């Protein structure tokens, strides 16, 4: 018995030796990073900023009510030749351990994006604390650091707002793209597809936006807006798409959730608003005599949202006409998106991937020169739209005169 105990304790010596409580990190010793920003510093180094949640502040506003005294988030910044160096340096400013698992978004400055994303993304992917659902945005106006510093009245945590705002805007407006680390890495590594990332811009005076006073204004002096989609080639930002073209790109990527399309009503321009509630897009690619033919098939389901002109909405013929017009409008948008992408030789839609899947053998011969081939490809778009109702009224009051 004693002999066995002795062997047992020898065997499990490591258990007893190393002490028992050193393997964990308590929750209150963590500095929870809610968002990260990457900028280019003046000397060519990276400048990394973290937005760290000031949880004691959040707690006090919760229990005490009436707003706290200090800011809900703190932003730490430092520079380094590599990202990790900058992160290490910045973490020296924080008394606690930086904790990335609950990060909501990464903001990358346009300059960095133009120089290439590949250096930035390895660390985002490799670190076990990083999650692939992390949202990625490109800072268009203002640096990532400034954007992180802006406080927003309706949100406790500006960092998590980045993600939420992106979600909302891409679901309601349809002109921005919810792209996360997974999508970007997929675009960076796979042949036949390039990443596309939405932009975020800072509007207003950023100095005032950083202080608590920004939270006390009903019309904040500084705020952020998500706008535009960036096109990449070989991991480098090439061009921005905006407005309807951007919506065309979102449609092509089959990410369109909900949007409102304006079409003409007789002579009146953009007088009819149609809400698209469901959209489905299928891409195809084929080679025809050494020249690729790209096909796009789209289907929409929508309803009349606003009608500022006399029109008979209980008439099937009118509806048919509207559907036709909607199809034309969407085709136009999609074509303009493809044309822009072709001009920049950025296949962000993954036509190449589609070709790879359908004709793997032929793909092998052209994969290395796909981007130039793509830019000369012929595009055929087919669309089908159905308008299934017109809201609570049939005819607008315009027509009842």
């Amino acid at each position, binding site marked *: 018995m004693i002999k066995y105990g002795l062997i047992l304790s020898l*065997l*499990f010596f490591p258990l007893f030796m190393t002490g028992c409580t*050193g*393997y964990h990190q308590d929750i209150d010793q963590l500095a929870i990073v809610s968002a990260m920003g990457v900028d280019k510093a003046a000397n060519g180094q990276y400048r990394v900023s973290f937005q760290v949640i000031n949880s004691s502040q959040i707690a006090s506003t919760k229990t005490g009510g009436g707003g706290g005294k200090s800011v809900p988030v703190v932003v730490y910044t430092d520079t380094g030749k590599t990202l990790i160096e900058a992160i290490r340096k910045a973490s020296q400013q924080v008394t606690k351990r930086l904790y990335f698992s609950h990060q909501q978004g990464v903001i990358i400055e346009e300059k960095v994006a133009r120089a290439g994303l590949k250096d930035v993304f390895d660390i985002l992917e490799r670190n*076990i604390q990083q999650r*692939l659902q992390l949202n990625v945005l490109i800072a268009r106006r203002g640096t990532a650091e400034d954007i992180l510093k802006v406080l927003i009245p309706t949100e406790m945590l500006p960092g998590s707002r980045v993600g939420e705002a992106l979600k909302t805007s891409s679901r309601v407006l349809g002109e921005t793209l919810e792209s996360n680390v997974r999508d970007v890495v*997929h675009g960076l*590594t796979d042949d036949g597809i390039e990443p596309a990332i939405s932009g975020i811009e800072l509007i207003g005076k950023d100095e005032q936006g950083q202080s608590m006073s920004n939270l006390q204004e009903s019309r904040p002096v500084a705020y952020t807006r998500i706008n535009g989609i960036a096109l990449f080639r070989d991991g480098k930002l090439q061009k921005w798409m905006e407005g309807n073209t951007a919506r065309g790109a979102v449609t092509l990527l089959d990410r369109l959730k909900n949007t409102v399309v304006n079409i003409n009503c007789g002579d009146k321009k953009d007088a009819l608003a149609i809400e698209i509630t469901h959209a489905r897009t299928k891409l195809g690619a084929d080679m025809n005599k050494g020249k690729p033919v790209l096909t796009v098939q789209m289907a929409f389901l929508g309803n009349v949202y606003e009608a500022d002109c006399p029109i008979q909405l209980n008439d099937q013929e009118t509806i048919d006409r509207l559907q036709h017009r909607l199809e034309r409008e969407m085709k136009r948008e999609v074509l303009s998106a493809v044309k822009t992408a072709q001009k920049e030789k950025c296949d962000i839609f993954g036509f190449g991937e589609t070709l790879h899947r359908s*004709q793997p053998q032929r793909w092998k011969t052209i994969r290395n020169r796909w981007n130039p081939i793509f830019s000369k490809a012929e595009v055929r778009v087919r669309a089908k739209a159905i308008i299934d109702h017109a809201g609570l009224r049939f005819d607008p009051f315009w027509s009842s005169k």
Partner: protein
Amino acid sequence: MRQHVTEKVQSYQLFSLVVFFELGTTIVLGNGIHQARQDAWLANLLGVGVGLLLFLVYARLYLRYPALSLTGSLQKICGKPVGWILGLVYVEYFLYLAARDLKDFTRLLQVGYFPLMPIAVTASFMLLIVIYVLTKGLEGLAGTSFVFFIFFSVMFCTTDVLILLFGEVKPEQLQPVLENGWRPVFQTVFPLMLTFPYGEMIAFTMMLPFCRNQPRKNVKTALWGILVSGLVLTVTVILDIVVSGVDISARSSFPYLITISQVEVGTFLQRLDVVTILVLIMGGFFKIGVFLHAAVVGAADLFGVHNPRKFLLPFATVVLVTFLTMAESLMEHIQIGLQIVPKYVHLPLQLGIPLLLLIVDGVKSRTKKQRSAGENFS
């Protein structure tokens, strides 16, 4: 006072043990995605077939001598000295496999969940629990595996349904099928998938004689176990590819973790990562348990010791020491594990010797028959 109930292992317990053993750490690792890429599911299906065939070799041996474990039949077929030495080699082989598995397992745990915990500590704790459960004998191990199998099935099915419902599933990622022909698929199956996990089933030749039912039924149960675990692996690999994409799955050390972490059910059920860690620990535990038990039973058989439990502590010590002196880095570990060991250790021990045994046994019995027939004539 206390009744010693010597119940033998029931067939469903054997089944669950086989399933856990096969799934092991493999399920988390995304079997074959690294090599066969989007055709990994084909490789997995092929692998099950090959695994079943391989097990039929072991089953044939077992059915020839239903009362004998591998060490027993070795001595029976090859004679005392040669068979005994080969038996000892197998015992050491099982210990090596246990240590290797422990290394795999603790490494994964460290990379994925406990970056601050030294692997020696994780490993000692695991061994402690394995020893405890093995003092309850094979019945204890198999019975426990069955209880956890119920838990596992419920969890696995729920998670997979959640992935299908709430993950971003893109079935087209499975295309193009057979981009580079059958070659990469075959290369994944031979020798990699053959030896890991299917060839490791050789450990069960040490246990089948202790199962309750008819030998034929035992073999059938084990075959079902292999088939089911193969299908589970295939489903997992398909989910990995369809949800995470081939590229990310192939480059990551935990494809299943990445797949599961993408499930977001509203805002409240966002982090199912706990499922991976549970599956990983259960698989690791039963695999190490089976190997250690195989070694212990084999040694008891070789040295004629009645109570195999006496070997538990010394053998666990051996495993721990082997574990501590094994390859330093994960890269070295994987390199040895994927390139050197399969060729020079796994193949001969998992395939070569059993086949040889069957042939020798067949020849022997034939000559015996002829001899006896000849005697009858004369």
